[in-house]
């Protein structure tokens, strides 16, 4: 597929690729870290060529919600392995959540994570700062200092835990206005979900597992939307999982309030029925819900009520998942399969076209994350972050083995369409022919 030119000046010529919403079967020239030209008959001596016939080009994907586990849980994942997985999934930037050990609640930790990302070099790592010290929900963390640090944190989240104290949530929403920050809430009323294991419904009743009621998510979202409106700040809702939550967000947006929302790939495809065999690979927070919820989430992603897809990639070591349900950790991996799941759930069902996918997996998440260098539509002059994807690749069963250190994917054995062929970060390939470059 690639052939070396006489003098390799580091540039790349991608030929025969289709840009969704733009030209079909055109060429893209990458050089000096940017897209230098787009057109049907480009040529450039010194460029390496990539035959992209039949492929589509998306702006490099941006994940607003990833757990890289480093520092502290390197048995599950490291920045190196997590970003490698991200690149293989077509991502050029990931937001690394703060629930590490130590928690990313100081400039020191966020700068460490940021540096580890640059050293690994597979994709850009944008650290997320904790809202409260130690995620304890009691005291605000030094949000301003983290914003001013080299990591330039703009998204703050206690994800894993909910900022449940209404006063603290109000203060956090107000405080980040000073530097255009956004609070990303993991909406889960702790009192309504003590010991919860699975969506509260027919399955939980049958299986004898403590229920996680939808209202525990919806009530917090409703409150936070009202708070954000009251103080004039921006709220981002993590991993929306219920139809009721969608209704509340739609209402908040209709009032012109600055509320954005994300949905995970697994919530677009899977339901709580999968828990029937008690395999904890399906245990996740928020839990898998019902068919009706899945249908509403898909509609909401299509009509823009939900702004973007975010993986909530949550790697866990084998022993945390190969146990009784109640003992198992919550979480699923997702970076490597995200685009394929979205194709299955949204594109192949006719709900969304690839241009729409580009918006929801690159342009809008970058905007929400205030990530200036990413999420640019593919035009000359844009940064050279792009993803080449083959939507027509024959459906293949997902294997648990991948670049991630962890194997807890709920899609193991499931046939998914499509294949990420290449990922370019600042004009340099991170992934070629589906393998790390």
């Amino acid at each position, binding site marked *: 597929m690639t052939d070396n030119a006489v003098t390799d000046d580091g540039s790349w010529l991608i030929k025969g690729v289709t840009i969704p919403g733009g030209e079909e079967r055109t060429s893209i020239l990458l050089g000096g870290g940017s897209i230098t030209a787009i057109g049907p008959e480009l040529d450039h001596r010194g460029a390496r060529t990539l035959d992209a016939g039949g492929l589509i080009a998306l702006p490099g994907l941006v994940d607003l919600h990833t757990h890289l586990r480093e520092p502290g849980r390197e048995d599950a994942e490291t920045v190196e392995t997590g970003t490698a997985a991200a690149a293989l999934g077509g991502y050029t930037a990931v937001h690394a959540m703060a629930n590490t050990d130590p928690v990313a609640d100081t400039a020191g930790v966020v700068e460490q994570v940021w540096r580890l990302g640059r050293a690994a070099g597979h994709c850009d790592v944008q650290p997320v700062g904790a809202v409260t010290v130690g995620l304890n929900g009691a005291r605000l963390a030094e949000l301003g200092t983290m914003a001013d640090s080299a990591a330039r944190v703009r998204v703050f989240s206690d994800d894993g835990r909910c900022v449940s104290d209404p006063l603290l949530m109000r203060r956090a929403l107000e405080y980040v206005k000073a530097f255009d920050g956004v609070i990303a809430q993991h909406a889960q009323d702790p009192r309504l979900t003590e010991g919860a*294991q699975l969506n*509260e*419904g*027919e399955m*939980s*009743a*049958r*299986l*004898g*597992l403590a*229920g996680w*009621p939808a209202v525990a998510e919806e009530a917090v979202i409703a409150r936070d939307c009202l708070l954000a409106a009251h103080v004039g700040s921006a709220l981002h809702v993590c991993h929306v999982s219920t139809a009721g939550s969608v209704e509340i967000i739609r209402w908040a947006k209709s009032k012109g309030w600055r509320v954005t929302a994300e949905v995970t790939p697994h919530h677009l495809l899977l339901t709580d029925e999968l828990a029937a*065999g*008690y*395999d904890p690979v399906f245990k996740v927070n928020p839990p898998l819900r019902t068919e009706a919820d899945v249908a509403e989430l898909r509609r909401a992603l299509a009509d823009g009520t939900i702004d973007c897809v975010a993986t909530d990639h949550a790697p866990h070591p084998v*022993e945390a998942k*190969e*146990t*009784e*349900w*109640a*003992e198992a950790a919550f979480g699923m991996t997702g970076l490597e399969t995200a685009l394929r799941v979205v194709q299955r759930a949204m594109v192949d069902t006719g709900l969304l076209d690839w241009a729409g996918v580009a918006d929801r997996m690159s342009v809008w998440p970058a905007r929400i994350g205030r990530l200036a260098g990413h999420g640019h539509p593919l035009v000359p002059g844009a940064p050279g972050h792009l993803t080449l994807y083959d939507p027509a690749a024959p459906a293949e069963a997902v294997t648990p083995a991948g670049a991630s250190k962890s194997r807890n994917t709920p899609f193991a054995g499931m046939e998914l369409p499509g294949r990420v062929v290449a990922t370019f970060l600042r004009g340099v390939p991170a992934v070629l022919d589906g393998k790390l470059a």
Partner: protein
Amino acid sequence: MKRHLISAADLSRGDALLILDTAEELASLADRPIKKLPTLRGRTVVNLFYEDSTRTRISFEAAAKRLSADVINFSAKGSSVAKGESLKDTALTLEAMGADAVVIRHGASGAAHRLAGWVRGSVLNAGDGTHEHPTQALLDAFTIRRRLKGAGARDAGLDGLRVTIVGDVLHSRVARSNVLLLSTLGAEVTLAAPPTLLPLAVGSWPCAVSYDLDSELPKSDVVMMLRVQQERMTAAYFPSVREYSRRYGLDAARMARLPGPAIVMHPGPMNRGVEIAAEVADSVRSTIVEQVANGVTTRMAVLYLLLGGMEFPATGVAQ
């Protein structure tokens, strides 16, 4: 019958009747001078009890021994499990010991399912978390049939009998298994409990629901009382033991309103004075003592039907 007995839903009406009829035949064993049959000689049954339950464990042990099986008791206290050994590693150890059947009682719902994926023998669920306790439902059904259709009844289900189950259904594995099995056998089941102790999705279960115990008593052939744990009070399931007892406890006055031959059951252990009054527990309507004897008999029937014939074909890892 299938290789494992994990949920009462695993049993068709035919399976359930086969177990009850087999138990009927084995019931007379207790009256014989030699209370033993050679049928499971050379088979090994492991009792894997993570929760303290002397009565159930002894019941399974007696059942296995009366069929001449070898019994190995493995209780969690003071064992490798207490030192943090995982369920999977314990399962692999049992496999290596050649267990033909593992009887498991565990505090986590789904533990029996998981175990079934790791051992080749039969898995018998003796109670997993708040999920199910199928042999309890079987001995309850057997007790009901003997009392209300006569000892020696065979090939008969529980058709037309009205059973009311009272108490903490939400956290009760006994309730779940009984709702499934009793309705499979043709009984009409009603759950009577405060709304906080019923699962929200109970409407999809094969039974009726009532919040008013008194209205159900005159039309019940069987009243099955479930144990209520005092800890539920601190989690705000009901305001006080006193109020619970007043509204849902079975006292002598309520017992007097039961129709003629109606019986009172309790899986044990009882909270005398909370869900059931002492005079009710000791009355002639109460089947509490014979439930214990019937437990051994029904468990013998289950062990025989699972292990007494040829081995089930290997089905691979259970999902």
